[in-house]
């Protein structure tokens, strides 16, 4: 039990359960099938985006271009199907390839020049977004194959949409990567301390490029899932991803300096953000409040993390005194 208490996701999980019960007591509409369906859709999409940012946070960097990659892939995916009447599978593959290439560019330039990933991804954010606007001239693509529309709209059973399948698989894979593979452990080691990880023989080039490539792939998947959901490919897909992509991992206890992320806590962070946004809608609160709320949640999470660190420090100090 005490081991459970120490986990980042445990407290979040409690907040989630009690919060949901409280909200549904006041507003039974909260657990109506339709509402659960909408909730699951928003969770699925943001889950992928949050994972895409989380892996970069793990290595102690930031990726501002997550949304731009998602948008570029989204319009390429739909453009290939509409303009070149390509079938779905090759279009998906090319979409993934674009995401991979974008991630590779981010990672390669960052690690080879030693310039902060913040600046590199700010530049590539404009490059990818510029390509997006240059290609589409800000016009959406509407012609989406029925199968894609079906995937974005249909339910497996009850309120559970098909769309949740891929994000759940991704979350499991990410958990395995971060907790059970040497690559994931190396990433955390690199994020924790670049010099010492290099001294024990971890290749920074490999780690940084892998992390950015995975981030790019996840952003690409996120972009294509949004296309399924919206049933069209608009150039502004991904524009609003920046804040939520950082919110979920930070609420989940990730330290921006790198070296500490928790996949389950990040997933709970996503669910928490979605539930709160949804609850604000149900209680008929101005949508702009959702944004303010998200901001305050990040600050609150930051303060709580700080307090826990402080307590941890004090405890270890007592032990060393004895």
């Amino acid at each position: 039990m005490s081991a459970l208490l120490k986990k980042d996701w445990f407290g979040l999980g409690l907040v989630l359960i009690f919060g949901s019960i409280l909200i549904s007591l006041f507003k039974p509409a909260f657990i109506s099938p339709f509402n659960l369906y909408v909730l699951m859709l928003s969770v699925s999409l943001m889950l992928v985006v949050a994972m895409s940012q989380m892996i970069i946070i793990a290595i102690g960097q930031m990726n501002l271009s997550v949304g731009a990659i998602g948008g570029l892939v989204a319009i390429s995916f739909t453009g290939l199907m509409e303009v070149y009447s390509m079938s779905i599978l090759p279009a998906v593959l090319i979409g993934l390839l674009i995401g991979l290439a974008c991630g590779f560019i981010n990672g390669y330039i960052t690690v080879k020049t030693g310039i902060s990933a913040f600046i590199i991804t700010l530049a590539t954010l404009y490059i990818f977004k510029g390509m997006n606007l240059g290609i589409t001239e800000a016009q959406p693509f509407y012609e989406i194959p029925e199968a894609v529309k079906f995937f974005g709209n249909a339910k497996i059973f009850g309120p559970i949409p098909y769309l949740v399948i891929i994000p759940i698989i991704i979350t499991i894979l990410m958990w395995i990567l971060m907790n059970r593979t040497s690559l994931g452990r190396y990433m955390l080691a690199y994020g924790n301390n670049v010099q010492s990880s290099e001294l024990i023989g971890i290749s920074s080039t490999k780690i940084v490029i892998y992390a950015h490539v995975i981030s790019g792939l996840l952003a690409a998947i996120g972009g294509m899932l949004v296309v399924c959901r919206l049933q069209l490919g608009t150039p502004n897909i991904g524009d609003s991803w920046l804040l939520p992509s950082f919110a979920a991992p930070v609420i989940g206890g990730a330290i921006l300096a790198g070296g500490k992320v928790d996949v389950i806590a990040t997933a709970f962070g996503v669910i928490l953000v979605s539930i709160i946004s949804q609850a604000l809608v149900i209680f008929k609160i101005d949508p702009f409040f959702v944004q303010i709320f998200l901001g305050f949640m990040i600050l609150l999470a930051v303060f709580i993390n700080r307090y826990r660190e402080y307590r941890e420090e004090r405890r270890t100090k007592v032990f060393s005194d004895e």
Partner: protein
Amino acid sequence: MNNKIPNFVKTNQFGLLILVIVFICIFSFSTDGFTSRFNIYALSRVVALDIMIGLAMMVVILTGGLNLSLGALGVSAAMFGGWCMESIGIPISITIILVLAFGSFLGWINGFVTVRTGVHSFIVTLATMSIYFGFMTLLTEAEAFRKLPEAFTDFGSLKLFNKYISPLLIISVLTCFVLYYIFKYTDIGRKLIAAGANPDAAELSGISVDRMFIYCHMLSGFLAALAGIMLTARIGAAIPSMAGHLGFDWLLPAFLAPVLGGTLLSGGKVTVFGTMLGAILVTLINNGLYLIDVGEFWVRFFLGIILLGAVLLDRAREYFTVKNSIVS
């Protein structure tokens, strides 16, 4: 041989100056109208704002931090100013003082939370960005203030020096000189730089690093608010969306100018005139791209490429200067 090259030539600013001159030559020869009175006046109005935004970011980069809330903060302050002038009818001069105080206060919040939590200012200002912008949108109901006093809007469209230069540019250049003076010759300026360069050493020599960092964030808020007022004067109205969603339109110029100007992202170095030259270069390129007619949708793409090219070039320059100094 190395000793014969004057120090100035080795600096980043010199490279920038050359680039500015080169681009001016390219655009004057390859496009019509680049040197026209109308275009130069338009450029001076845009450059004025870009310099101010760049300076506002520079003073936070000095601490090794970032200020993502810059645009949201500037627009919030400008909307506050619009409200003061239009709804309450406060005189212009007092409004400006109030707006600058308000901007400094928002900056203080950024600084206070950053210092107290010890979290990177990126995440703090990411949060305050959405908080400021959200509150601003809620309170204004996304409505613009369009009936500002004429004396105020007239100032924004004033033309000086044979109708070539906007007075806004003069404000920005003056601000540059003031900041240069502060950082170079005043006690507090030196302390700010020391705190940014090596917080531990500064703390040990009796400088309150936390307070210095809060000052930097307040200065950033002050300059962002000033940029907000200038933009309001330029447009002739205070519009919630004038810096884009969440103030994002300001972010690229904000980072481009100081980074091009040679400000280190790790903190501890400011280059006021480098930032000014960086802002001039960005505006020139932006303007030139429109005149060359690359298509408005591709402008962003080229700006991204230029930012990337600039930081890579700077990296190469650093590499060669280090190599040269080792050889000699």
